[in-house]
């Protein structure tokens, strides 16, 4: 009988540990990114690693996103495993030529003779006036491209097992999109270094079983969905089945279809815009497979179709809040005229509590 020790750690601590483990166990790993070796260490996720492993393995780089991404590709081709960071997802667009035109195609385009193993971490900002260029959530843009693995770890263990898998076992480019607001969240962690994962680390997982509705969620929306599901179970005996999509590029289609076949109801909650995004994709696979399994139209939640405004007043309207999330679930399960009384204020205060600036 193996005893699995359960710890409570923050997302940030999981990131730091995953980086530390990678450096400790794989001599080819280098971490290159803006401020990875400074006193803040990428919001704590790379802190003190330059001191521990040396400046030649954890180093700051010029403000040259495209060039740096190309450097990572060349380094990967010649024996290193680069981990790159973009302290905002938005900045990765400057590297997108290398990520999309080059890295995604390197193996295929040259007939399978080359591999470019690397991990690029990108961080989504939200709240405290991040505004239009510090808040974008670009998973569907990258997941659209064959050749890229795109993941959005929603928990400490998701970080630990995915990043270990990327570094230890996978030989291609991995884009991981982390949510800044997850960094200080605490999670129960049972992850043991090197232990075989119970599921494909680059695929989806069911984080809560339920019979009434399937909620497919990404990143921080998984956490919101879990809180709401707790509330709905307790107050109204509604059973939510929550699928953490986790891998936007390689999600578990069969898992989603099995669940929707069981519940007949589907809500997709993504951190980005709905058009051409995760919601559109998940709706596509259900429609192409068997739309008759749906007992009601699909509902999707995402950002309003505008750039992100800075004013708190408008920002609150821009993101779906947990009350509307809750309302939509009840609507799908009980119908529009459900007559249930919902609380008049937000179920969680995290977005209001976040004190930036960054």
């Amino acid at each position, binding site marked *: 009988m193996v005893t699995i020790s359960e710890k409570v750690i923050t997302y940030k601590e999981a990131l730091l540990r995953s980086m530390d483990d990678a450096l400790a166990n794989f001599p080819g790993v280098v971490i290159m990114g803006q401020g990875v070796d400074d006193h803040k260490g990428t919001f704590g996720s790379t802190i003190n690693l330059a001191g521990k492993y040396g400046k030649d393995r954890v180093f700051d780089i010029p403000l040259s996103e495209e*060039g740096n991404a190309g*450097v990572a590709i060349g380094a990967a081709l010649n024996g290193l495993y680069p981990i790159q960071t973009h302290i905002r997802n938005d900045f990765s667009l400057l590297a997108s030529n290398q990520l999309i035109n*080059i890295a995604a195609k390197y193996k295929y*385009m*040259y007939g*399978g003779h*080359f591999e470019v193993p690397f991990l690029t971490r990108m961080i989504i900002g939200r709240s405290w006036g991040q505004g239009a260029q510090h808040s974008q959530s670009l998973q569907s843009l990258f997941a659209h491209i064959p050749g890229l693995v795109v993941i959005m770890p929603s928990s400490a263990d998701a970080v630990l097992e995915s990043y270990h898998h990327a570094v230890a076992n996978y030989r291609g480019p991995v884009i991981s999109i982390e949510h800044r607001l997850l960094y200080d969240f605490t999670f129960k962690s049972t992850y043991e270094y090197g232990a075989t994962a119970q599921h494909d680390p680059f695929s989806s997982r069911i984080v809560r079983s339920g019979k009434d509705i399937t909620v497919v969620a990404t990143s921080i929306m998984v956490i919101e969905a879990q809180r709401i599901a707790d509330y709905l179970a307790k107050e109204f005996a509604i059973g939510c089945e929550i699928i953490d999509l986790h891998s936007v590029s390689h999600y578990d289609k069969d898992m989603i279809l099995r669940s929707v076949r069981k519940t007949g109801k589907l809500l997709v909650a993504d951190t980005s815009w709905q058009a051409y995004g995760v919601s559109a994709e998940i709706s596509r696979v259900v429609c192409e497979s068997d739309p008759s399994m749906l007992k009601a139209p699909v509902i999707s939640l995402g950002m309003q179709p505008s750039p992100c405004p800075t004013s708190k007043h408008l920002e609150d309207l821009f993101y779906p809040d947990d009350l509307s999330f809750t309302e939509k679930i009840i609507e799908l399960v009980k119908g529009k005229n459900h007559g249930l009384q919902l609380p008049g204020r937000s179920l969680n205060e995290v977005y209001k509590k976040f004190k930036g600036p960054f």
Partner: protein
Amino acid sequence: MSMNKLYEKLFYEALRIRLVEEKIIEIYPTDKIQSPVHLSIGQEAVAVGICNNLLPTDLLYSSYRSHAYYIAKGADLDKMFAELYGKEAGCGKGKAGSMHLAEKSVGFMGSSAIVASTISHAVGSALASKRLNKGQVSVATFGDGASEEGSYHESLSFAAAFRLPVIFVCENNGLAIHSKIEQRHTYVVHEHAKAYGVKSVYIEEGYDFMKINKVMAGVVEYVRETGLPYVVEVKTYRYKEHVGIGDDHNVPYRSVDEFNEWKNADPLIQDKESIAKFSAKINDEIARAVKFAEESPFPADSELLADIY
């Protein structure tokens, strides 16, 4: 190696590249090669002069105009023609075509159709050789148009700041498709490199493989010994149109006179004795490669979705 032997060796390599491309021109109208070709004719000496000084373990990254580098770095002609024909035996299993030739076994690490996109790969490659003490030299080859991309400047700056063993080779043919260098930028590539603290050299005689070879011998030795970057600018001349097999001196964006000046200096045209001496042997080799390509099968249907992840 005596001067005469060296001359013959380099001449042979340069002529080999030219005859390969002339064979492509011959085959092209049959549509057996369905891939945009950017011919190196006129620029062969640059590839030959550089690659003669590289070890098989040195890594070279190139652009869509890369037939010359593929051959000069020592990659296989059978696999090249098979690739141009879209056959499974091609160096890229028929998925690469003319613009994405690569051959890992000889250190020819890739060629890309996105201008300037492989320059930073040579820098990253040099970063890895430095960290892993591999003793390699990494080389990026690109045109004067590529020097206008931000990525070129980012790469130069990175290589200088991190002190990396990489050679940037700018083949300056003065043209970006049809637009002339004077219309596009005001700096001089080899002068401008000095602003980054990177040493540089300019070779005006881009047809002279002996001279390029000699200069490159010094550059490669310097980079290998010091581990520092170097910029080499070579003035050269593109004989053919940007893409395709045609001549385009009948349209008024460049003059026949300058073309004739280059041809008058080009050993691959002027040294008729050496051409006569080597052509038959090379043409035999090319004929065998073409036959190999013709007889090779197309990729299996399953190849469409293979090697993506």
